[in-house]
């Protein structure tokens, strides 16, 4: 059978030409006669692509990877390592088209997940992004290489776990100074509500800290009294109430600094600090913080030592200072100091 296009003599029964791939035996009934049409949204996108082509010869740039790159990426593990950036392995071997939809979905899930980070929806979207990323990574080589469904599922699960850990710890490497967490008490004067999510910055100067600032303290400070007290969460935001050298008192749930009462709406004493009477001089280089704890034992006779050890924190135990409210979206914005 001779190909009409390249005149190559093919084996009988061949449907497409072995040499050029042209269709040889045409079944008139199976041919679609309706051309695919351009979606309206593509029009401006293509116009931009044309402008790019006009400016910089965009279409002329065709990246062909060196042979050793393709050979290296033929192995599963290097391809997986390369896929830490989703689609990179595909991009290097010119297979990006295979996963472009998944890449787009990953991008959408990741961006919306980050936008809603701190809320349940945000976590679900990020989980979907991790799933999509895993799919892209295993699609490159693993799924083709493995034969049984059980093997494929097992590898996918392992990669999913690895990528979940990567997503958990990667932000620490990329932006080491950025942190975040929820607050567990209300500050009515600042429209802060229990459960709001805040972003904080680790790199702080002692001079920057002022009364009313929201801060994160090192977990070790909170866990000193773990035997007797239970912290409500691992990552808790606290509020600076007393500065170094000041005299701080708590009387019927109201803070007094140097005998001057603080506004209850701006400095509300959390539940366990609403004691009859407490008084202390804040040591130098330390701060008195309003921090939410849940007491294990409600019949502790003298609470003052615990307050001293939990609420008076040294500067070196302060991890980061809150600079932005992230959730809910309606109150998103930088903290006005």
């Amino acid at each position, binding site marked *: 059978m001779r190909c009409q296009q390249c005149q190559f003599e093919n084996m009988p029964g061949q449907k497409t030409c072995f040499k050029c791939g042209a269709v040889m035996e045409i079944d008139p009934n199976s041919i679609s006669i309706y*051309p695919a049409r351009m979606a309206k949204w593509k029009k401006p996108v293509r116009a931009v692509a044309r402008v790019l082509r006009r400016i910089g010869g965009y279409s002329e740039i065709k990246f062909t990877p060196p042979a050793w790159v393709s050979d290296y990426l033929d192995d599963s593990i290097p391809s997986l390592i390369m896929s830490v950036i989703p689609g990179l392995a595909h991009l290097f071997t010119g297979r990006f088209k295979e996963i472009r939809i998944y890449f787009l979905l990953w991008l959408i899930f990741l961006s919306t997940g980050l936008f809603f980070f701190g809320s349940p929806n945000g976590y679900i979207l990020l989980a979907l992004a991790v799933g999509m990323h895993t799919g892209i990574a295993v699609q490159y080589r693993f799924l083709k290489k493995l034969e049984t469904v059980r093997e494929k599922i097992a590898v996918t699960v392992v990669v999913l776990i690895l990528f979940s850990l990567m997503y958990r710890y990667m932000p620490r490497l990329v932006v080491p100074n950025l942190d975040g967490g929820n607050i567990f008490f209300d500050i009515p004067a600042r429209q802060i509500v229990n459960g709001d999510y805040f972003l904080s910055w680790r790199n702080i100067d002692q001079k920057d800290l002022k009364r009313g600032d929201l801060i994160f303290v090192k977990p070790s400070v909170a866990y000193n009294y773990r035997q007797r007290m239970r912290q409500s969460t691992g990552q808790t935001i606290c509020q600076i109430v007393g500065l170094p050298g000041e005299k701080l008192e708590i009387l019927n749930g109201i803070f007094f600094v140097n005998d001057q009462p603080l506004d209850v709406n701006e400095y509300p004493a959390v539940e366990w600090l609403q004691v009859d009477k407490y008084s202390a001089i804040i040591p130098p280089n330390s701060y008195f913080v309003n921090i939410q704890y849940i007491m294990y034992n409600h019949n502790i006779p003298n609470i003052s030592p615990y307050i001293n050890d939990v609420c008076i924190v040294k500067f070196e135990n302060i991890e980061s200072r809150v600079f932005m409210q992230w959730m809910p979206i309606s109150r998103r914005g930088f903290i006005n100091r």
Partner: protein
Amino acid sequence: MDADFKKGFYKPMTRFSQLEFDGADKEKPNEQIGEPVHDTAYYYKEAIRCRLAGDFELALRNYSRMLEMNNMRFEGWLGQTLMLIELGEYAEAAIWANKALDLFPQQPELYAARAVAYHRDLKKADAIKSSDTAIDIGNQSAYVWLSRAEIMYPRKHSVAENCLSKAISAAGKEGALVKLEAARIMKHYGNRHAAIEYLNEVVRVFPKSALAWYELGCCQSELGLSAAKAALEQSLILRPRWNAAENALAKCKPSFLKRLFRR
């Protein structure tokens, strides 16, 4: 391979050969009375009529209907590709040309159409390659030279104009239609005087072509000729409420300030 396929593959119908414009109908002695038969020739004629009216969407639909009747008609595939190009869907046109080339691998016109699609999508290297293939195959029709002219215009005007001359000489009976396409290319690349010459000939042959009047009106308008208004109005009479013609006519009318300071 069935008979239709053979007919479509080896003896393609000459483009525009079955057109009937103006008085052409009167010359036919055995004209059918009543509802015309809706066969491939009918849809092909309808498609060309829509093309000449500038309604490329409807022309595309008619080409598709033509292929519904017989999907081995080369003219239908080529027409679809050309209409996709006219509608600005260049990537789709290139894909469709490739698909058609699977069926008709030795048709230079399909390569030429693909070259135009690439050219308008600013994929210059691909366009040249495809156009070269179209010429290498041999048996070049007018459209192959038209396509070559369009691709060569931004590079070398003299070569492009030579290609246009070749296209017109290769056109034979279809000269007017080829001149219309040539004029559109010339207009696009700023050679409006030559385009007007061709378009005047075209409107003489096809006085009912809204597209020809529109292109003539646009060229005249860009040169500031007063005849532009009449040409565009004529195109609107032939195809009422045509947005492109209405906009061109609106631009043609002098603005308030122009009228105010007219000497």
